[in-house]
């Protein structure tokens, strides 16, 4: 049997300001009918450019050469009119960011029927609509007929990705290309989307190319794996070979890194919760609610309760992890500790001061002791300030009496402490990589010598290897400065690695709390168990078992219905 897709010596390059940048070098692989191939690599490895060149979707300054044969058709060099007979018809594609990949200005129905109008011009209008609704239904969208009329921004991220999948499947394609389909989603949603991809693959009997940076995702989904680095293929083989007897050094390195931050690893001696220590933060029956816009003139006011009656204490020197899906209220809770959000009821005490009652001067003192690092390192640094100015700002506001010389010295110490040299001080944020930006953000947070550091998804936007480095940096800082830390993350592996205690949040409430090892090893609540088991691990056999168990469970539950 000839293969469905055969890529031979594919090269992709970009010309930018007279320079040529090679994104993919000499890549060859084959894809059979019904095969699931995973392409893994970190950002910049050329994995996305590979599939974009297959689809003829490279940016205008990109060039591809080599050969991509899909069902006896050479795709490289095909005119866009010819390509349009293949893409969206024989090959469906879904993208990383379901938020922006759907058009918010036209209805979901208009978008989906546009695909059919293009590739199935013989369909009648009613037939087109029927087919779209059928597909929406088959990817698990509730009330598909209603959604057909609706818009993408009315849906959650997971639902949007389902709509994307439904649109890609409208024409019964032979190949589905999924470019980081779950990276922007919560773990529990990720699990469902990956299961859905496996399910529709069987139902529509098609092949899948799954691109991801997460080895766990590959382990749970794919049959064959292609590992890439800087545009070069590193290793290509079956999933068991790649995971259990990797040949290339880079694959070994990737696997090591992904296992390093795995949730089932045993930690060294567990730090006992120190009850006799001082309480740094205490939330007492804290509730935060937001008023929702009224639906009609006469409807009653609706409230969204983001944080619901939460009481916790954070002790001096500990690292408290806060985990939960998006929308669980974890960031809102952190904002109340920073006095960025006033609790609707209840109180928040930080260093013994009730934040809603203290005056401006005391508030400044509290801000000095409490600092924060946010998720997106690019947007949380002012793009018009140099690193020096960014680091000087907390000094100017908290230590205005300080001399310029000692400020300069502090700033220099600050930047070296986070592993960057003094030569970075003159740069602007856009001249730094994501990891370097986050280092600057951490240095900035440490400038006023805080005692409490709140990390709000501080490593979520970073690549796996950089994530490891930043976590190590945070741990080092915590040890050296005896900081108390509150670490908010949806990434459970990270929390497992650095936190002493964990609280699990769901829709504004604490579902479970306890020491990290207790919560991770013996979760009591179903919600926590679900959350933990939905994290994909870089272990194909284990993932297979988990998948079979889920299938069995969902089958039995649907039988009993």
């Amino acid at each position, binding site marked *: 049997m000839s293969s469905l897709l055969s890529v031979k010596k594919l090269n992709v390059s970009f010309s930018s300001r007279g320079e040529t940048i090679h994104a993919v070098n000499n890549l060859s692989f084959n894809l059979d009918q019904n095969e699931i191939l995973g392409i893994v690599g970190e950002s910049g490895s050329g994995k996305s450019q590979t599939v974009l060149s297959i689809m003829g979707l490279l940016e205008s300054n990109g060039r591809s050469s080599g050969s991509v044969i899909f069902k006896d058709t050479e795709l490289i060099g095909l005119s866009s009119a010819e390509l349009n007979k*293949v*893409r969206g018809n024989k090959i469906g594609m879904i*993208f990383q960011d379901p938020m*922006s990949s759907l058009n*918010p*200005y*036209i209805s979901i129905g208009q978008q989906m029927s*546009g695909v059919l109008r293009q590739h199935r011009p013989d369909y009648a209008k009613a037939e087109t609509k029927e087919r779209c609704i059928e597909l929406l239904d088959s990817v698990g969208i509730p009330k598909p007929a209603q959604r057909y009329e609706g818009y993408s921004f009315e849906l959650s991220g997971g639902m949007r990705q389902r709509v994307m999948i439904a649109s890609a499947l409208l024409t019964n394609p032979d190949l589905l290309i999924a470019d980081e389909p779950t990276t922007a989603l919560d773990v529990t949603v990720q699990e469902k989307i990956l299961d859905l991809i496996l399910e529709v693959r069987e139902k529509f009997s098609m092949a899948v190319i799954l691109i991801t940076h997460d080895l766990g995702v590959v382990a749970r989904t794919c049959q064959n794996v292609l590992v890439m680095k800087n545009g070069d293929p590193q290793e290509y083989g079956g999933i068991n070979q790649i995971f259990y007897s990797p040949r290339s050094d880079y694959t070994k390195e990737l696997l090591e890194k992904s296992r390093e931050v795995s949730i089932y690893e045993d930690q060294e001696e567990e730090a006992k919760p120190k009850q006799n220590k001082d309480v740094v933060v205490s939330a007492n029956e804290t509730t935060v609610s937001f008023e929702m816009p009224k639906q009609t003139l006469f409807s009653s006011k609706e409230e969204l309760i983001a944080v619901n009656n939460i009481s916790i204490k954070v002790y001096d020197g500990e690292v408290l992890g806060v985990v939960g899906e998006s929308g669980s209220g974890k960031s809102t809770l952190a904002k109340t500790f920073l006095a960025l959000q006033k609790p609707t009821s209840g109180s928040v005490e930080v260093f013994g001061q009730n934040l809603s009652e203290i005056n401006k001067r005391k508030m400044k003192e509290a801000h000095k002791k409490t600092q924060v690092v946010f998720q997106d390192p690019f947007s949380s640094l002012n793009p018009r300030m140099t690193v020096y100015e960014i680091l000087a700002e907390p000094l100017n506001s908290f230590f205005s009496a300080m001399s310029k010389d000692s400020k300069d010295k502090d700033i220099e110490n600050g930047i070296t402490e986070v592993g960057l040299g003094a030569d970075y001080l003159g740069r602007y944020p856009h001249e730094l990589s994501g990891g370097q930006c986050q280092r600057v953000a951490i240095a900035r947070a440490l400038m006023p010598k805080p005692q409490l550091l709140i990390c709000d998804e501080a490593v979520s936007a970073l690549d796996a290897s950089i994530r490891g480095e930043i976590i190590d940096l945070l741990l080092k800082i915590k040890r050296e400065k005896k900081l108390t830390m509150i670490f908010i993350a949806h990434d459970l592996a990270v929390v497992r690695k650095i936190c002493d205690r964990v609280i699990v949040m769901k829709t504004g409430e604490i579902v479970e709390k306890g020491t990290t090892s207790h919560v991770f090893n013996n979760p009591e609540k179903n919600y926590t168990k679900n959350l933990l088991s939905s994290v994909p691990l870089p272990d194909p056999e284990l993932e297979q078992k988990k998948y079979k168990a889920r299938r069995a469970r969902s089958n039995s539950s649907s039988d009993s219905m």
Partner: protein
Amino acid sequence: MNNIKFVLGRFLGAIPTLLALICLAFFLVKAAPGGPFDLERSLPEEVEANLRAAYNLDDPVYKQLYKYIGSILQGDFGPSFQYRDYTVTELIASGFPVSLRLGAFAILLALLFGTIIGTTAALNQNTKLDYSVMFFGMIGISIPNFVMAPLLVLLFSIVLSVFPAGGYNNGAFLNMVLPVTALALPQVAYIARLTRGSMIEVLSSNFVRTAKAQGIPMRNIIFGHVLKPTLLPVVSYLGPATAAIITGSVVVEQIFGLPGLGRYFVQGALNRDYTLVMGVVVFYGCLIIAFNLIVDTIYGFIDPKIKTSR
């Protein structure tokens, strides 16, 4: 339901704006030196005193303002000081159709050509075509219409003799071409630049990539996916554009000798015809507020996000 509430809210919000506009215009007109009865040969004092009393000009200023607002509320702009036998309302009624014809053609022309030129430039981004369109766009924006209009007259009326240099001639097509062009050109240029920028941004968005991956040809992507979000900023510019067209028409009508509102406005201002100037200002104010309201409502229909949150 919510749309009605929105429109009603905007109407109520317009009242203080209008009041402020009336007061400002009132004091500005009063602050200008001279008065309506300053003629070359001064009137006998008794006559002037009688005239002032007849037009309530001997009252204290606040009382005049109060009376004026009162009569406007009844829809009465008062008699013109200059055109003795007409009320201001009659003058507006005779001038407005001319101005409307001019302004409406100018706006339509600006919209049509602006979007087409902008789209062409965006689709040929960073080519010679794009650069030249943007170059002429910049020129169109920076040359004021009182320079453009005589230039057009010079070229098309005097050198080429295709269009008449002035006059209304009951709105004959040939007579309208030059004034409409002079009035619309800066707007064409502005809308073209706006459309180009907006479309380039939309073209680079992820949902366009999705549509390409779905095998939809570029033509259909432009019409089905790109045009609507591209036009949003253009629609919201229509409010300011009307204001610009109205102010432009004051000059253009004067240059081409069209008997529109703008000409009354200029002559009223020169002659200290208080009621006429005030009347036209208030009328223009209402017009601009109403048009902005219409634009906002249209915007709500195009952008589904606003439709649902309203």
